[in-house]
């Protein structure tokens, strides 16, 4: 499976959790916290669920506490996908 990119994440966030009116997801958001982007833990859980069904990468619920930014989540997904393969 191809690398999980920030654009892939943007797509999923838009579709499954919507976008806050004051936020531009296409801006340089990779280091912006999900909280600052307007996504609470429920939104993150929904994003995780979409990643699981779309990419087959299982993310445990308590990862919500570990991934603070989009960059964190993209890295996390790719590491887990890698670990699964090897």
């Amino acid at each position, binding site marked *: 499976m191809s690398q999980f990119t920030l654009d892939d994440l943007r797509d999923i966030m838009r579709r*499954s959790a*919507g*976008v*806050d*009116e004051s936020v531009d997801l296409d801006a340089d958001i990779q280091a912006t916290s999900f909280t600052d982007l307007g996504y609470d833990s*429920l939104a993150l859980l929904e994003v995780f669920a979409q990643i*699981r069904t779309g990419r087959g990468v299982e993310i445990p619920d308590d990862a919500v506490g570990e991934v603070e930014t989009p960059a964190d989540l993209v890295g996390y997904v790719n590491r887990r996908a890698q670990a699964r393969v090897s």
Partner: protein
Amino acid sequence: MTTLAPPRTVRPAVTGIGVVAPTGIGADRHWAATLAGRRGIDRITRFDSAGYPVTVAGEVRDFVSTEHVPSRLLVATDLWTHFALAATVLALRDSDLERAALDPYDIAVITASSSGGNAFGQKEIESLWARGPEHVTVYQSIAWFYAATTGQISIRHGMKGPCGVVVSEQAGGLDALYLARRALRDGSRAVVSGGTEAPIGPYALTCQIAGGLLSDDGDPATAYRPFAPDARGHVPGEGGAILVVEDLDDAVRRGAPRVYGLVAGCASGFDPPPGSGRPPALARVIRAALADAGCTPGEIGVVFADAAGTPEADAREVEALAAVFGPRGVPVTAPKTTTGRLYAGGAALDVATALLAIRDGVIPPTAGVRLPPDHPLDLVTGAPREARLRAALVVSRGHGGFTSAAVIAAAPGG
């Protein structure tokens, strides 16, 4: 040892009204359509109802959720909550409450709900059975349940006072106001109250059909004719009303642009089980509401009837009204004949309509029904009836036995 502050005496005043209903979006549109007896009941468009015994309903026309609800909330909420969020914005604007900059902990949100997030839940059940549990959205956990609307209003507007929801079917809108008054007595400075419903969809309609109370008449003009001898049941409707309620003194002090009227008296009861030999609760509850308001039957200028639309329930309402007011003792009307029964939105909308009737000194007509001149109900039909109204009685009965009544009075000096 801490002592609890005694509840304060309040006069709950409605300072803002937001309506999203089959009669229109906005109180003005709703009122104009109501006075004209313009029917908001039509063939169902929300889904293909061919093959269902019920094919007509009161739908909110031209309501586009994306125009009223930001995308972050859209994914997490049902249409029923969208209606309430939209109506809340209208009510807040109407009351100018936000300019008062009240402490967030002094603003409560108490709404009525009756069936919760039907369409959202149906969609997720379909995903569950067609694709599996991992395809059910996380948001199902917060979109369907009765308190979702209260919660989302509270979060969106930063209202952190004592929030709640009451579920008593069609009586809920009055019960929510009853609880709003309690919140004001306990110290809240404002309460966002009322209710909405979105019961038009395959799953939701099937549940209602199973209850046996819906009209199977497919003609929108004749389907819902409460008090008619050949009444065949009621028609469901969607939407409702949100009201901003404050103590009258607080409202005046903070410069509220207007006071529509007061919630002068509230009462709530429950029918005895069938076969008990005891009478239904309605007459007792009406008398209790009048007593609570310190008001005699003669001071009531109009009754907004529950208008269940089945001959048996209608007869019980006629009996109760005749017992309290005397036959033809008070003008009665059921403008819900233009919207259908809105369940959690119904009584809230009736209260909004009652306030507008008091403001303008005119009783809106009941649509589609004519009664003989010697009928024990003086039902206002055909055209609106001008009347100087000091107080109105709103009556509401919920499926199963919920019975509530409220006296809505003109503001003092109004």
